[in-house]
């Protein structure tokens, strides 16, 4: 089956109808120069020609505005965008008869993803990296990503011409104070995670403590469980062991890991203060 002339537009309409906020297409070959061997589209799907990226399911503006930190730290992340990606893979196969592989979320081993969703979003023109790290869409800001690798010869979108970061207020702040909201809220030099600068209006990251960021973002997650388990088994005192297992940290970690909640990420502070992360739409 040959693809219809407006295939990419049709696909994007289907993705938006399925729950995506944005959808873009990257050329599979564009990953070759930027992604390590084994983590390129053709490594996962022989004959890959395009990567479809969908974004959405971000916290709502009300979540960001909530005064309780527990709102975002327990409900800021959802996996809804992954179901959109999965459905798009099925859609491509059933509608057009081309192979489509839904890129699994998470990592294939260690911290290595199967395919970098951030890179995919950049190459598909739906976002660009921010000084804080996350890929931001120019119109909608921070969101979560899912990708589908396909053999369908879809016309690729180019990367965004202008990045969302730094936002105009951040440029002004840099000129005035030599910092930005994200760098100020989480400075690497003061037990934070981020370091960077703005040169000629462009954000440039000069430092990032990934390990520290991870322990803060995923305070209550699988590594938290492993940490408490080890501490408990190393603890000779029975009463202390009981406190460790029944304490808040372990309890919240178990909530985070199981199906009972969407308690996946706990730190959103760099995104909370980022003007670009909240998109262009103003809320009342």
């Amino acid at each position, binding site marked *: 089956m040959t693809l219809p002339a407006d295939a990419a537009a049709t696909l994007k309409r289907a993705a938006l109808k399925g729950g995506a906020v944005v959808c873009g297409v990257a050329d599979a070959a564009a990953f070759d120069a930027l992604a390590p061997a084994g983590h390129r589209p053709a490594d996962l799907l022989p004959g890959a020609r395009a990567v479809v990226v969908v974004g959405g399911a971000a916290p709502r503006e009300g979540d960001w505005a909530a005064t309780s930190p527990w709102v975002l730290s327990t409900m800021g992340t959802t996996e809804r965008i992954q179901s959109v990606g999965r459905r798009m893979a099925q859609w491509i196969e059933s509608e057009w008869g081309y192979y489509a592989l839904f890129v699994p979320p998470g990592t294939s081993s260690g911290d290595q993803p199967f395919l970098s969703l951030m890179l995919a979003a950049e190459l598909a023109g739906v976002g660009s990296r921010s000084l804080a790290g996350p890929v931001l869409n120019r119109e909608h800001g921070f969101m979560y990503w899912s990708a589908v690798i396909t053999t369908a010869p879809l016309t690729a979108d180019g990367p965004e011409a202008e990045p969302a970061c730094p936002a105009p207020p951040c440029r002004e702040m840099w000129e005035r104070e030599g910092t930005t909201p994200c760098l100020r809220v989480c400075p690497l030099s003061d037990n934070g995670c981020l370091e960077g600068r703005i040169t000629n209006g462009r954000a440039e990251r000069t430092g990032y403590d990934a390990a520290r960021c991870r322990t803060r973002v995923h305070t209550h997650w699988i590594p938290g469980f492993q940490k408490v388990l*080890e501490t408990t*088994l190393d603890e000779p005192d029975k009463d202390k062991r009981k406190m460790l297992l029944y304490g808040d940290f372990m309890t919240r970690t178990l909530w985070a890991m199981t199906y009972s909640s969407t308690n996946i990420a706990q730190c959103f502070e760099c995104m909370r203060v980022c003007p670009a992360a909240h998109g262009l739409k103003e809320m009342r």
Partner: protein
Amino acid sequence: MEPATSLETRVKSAGLAAGARVVGIAAVEAFRAAVPEGYRPEDILPGARSVIVAGGDGPTAGAWRCPDHRVMEITGYDLRENVAVHVMCDFIERELGHYAIQAPSLSVHGHEPPMSMMHAAELAGLGSRSLAAHIILNPEYGLLYYAALITTLPLEPDPPLAEPACPHPGCAAMYKRIGTTPCLRVCPACLTGSVKDNRIERSTYDRERCHSRAQTYGIGSFQKSLLQIVNEDDPERRHTMIHGDFFTKSLEAVGFFRDSIAQCFECMRVCPVGRKHRKLQ
């Protein structure tokens, strides 16, 4: 004047629109022949008249082609059939005014579920048991995942398959030629069986072995690892076991973030039933 759409079609359409690949209907009476008292649909929902079964897609054709086996470990399941069942339940209760519940399918004692989805799928005419660990194969799509609902709504049932999906004609011919089939050949450790007159003559499998391979990472491996960790006296070794890949993957599998439910698909990989849907461009 347009003909009125039947109740059966309306219910099935709701399920198909919600993501089911196939939907079939069985009468509750059909369960009585093979299901012991206490496990029949009417034992679960008083006054039950029908069981509606939804089959959801397995891996995409692209996923089957992926040379990295870990992709199928994580994305092999879709679980959409459960959504379709809930949508049909809502439709039946809200639009048609009959009780409807999702049929309980998770094991409650050992491997025993309160109600067998495999048997429900067979009775609803959606598939038949195969030589490959008795996995239900749909004659058109091959491997699908099944969920069901029980309702007090009386519906015209679909007939069971006139011809079983397994053995596929190619497998029957292969058996005649060399005494085996693709699934039996690829996994002689788990599967045994024979074919006679183009029908399954005998089929059995080592469920414990199959289970430990199909679910290398899951609740079972979490329990196994945890016991070993707790029994390990050396703190250094404990540290390695707790933070090692096996235990981490087991935790990821029991967590909800990834759909890492099954890790072995080899008998289905070689099965020709439904393969036409896996051959794309």
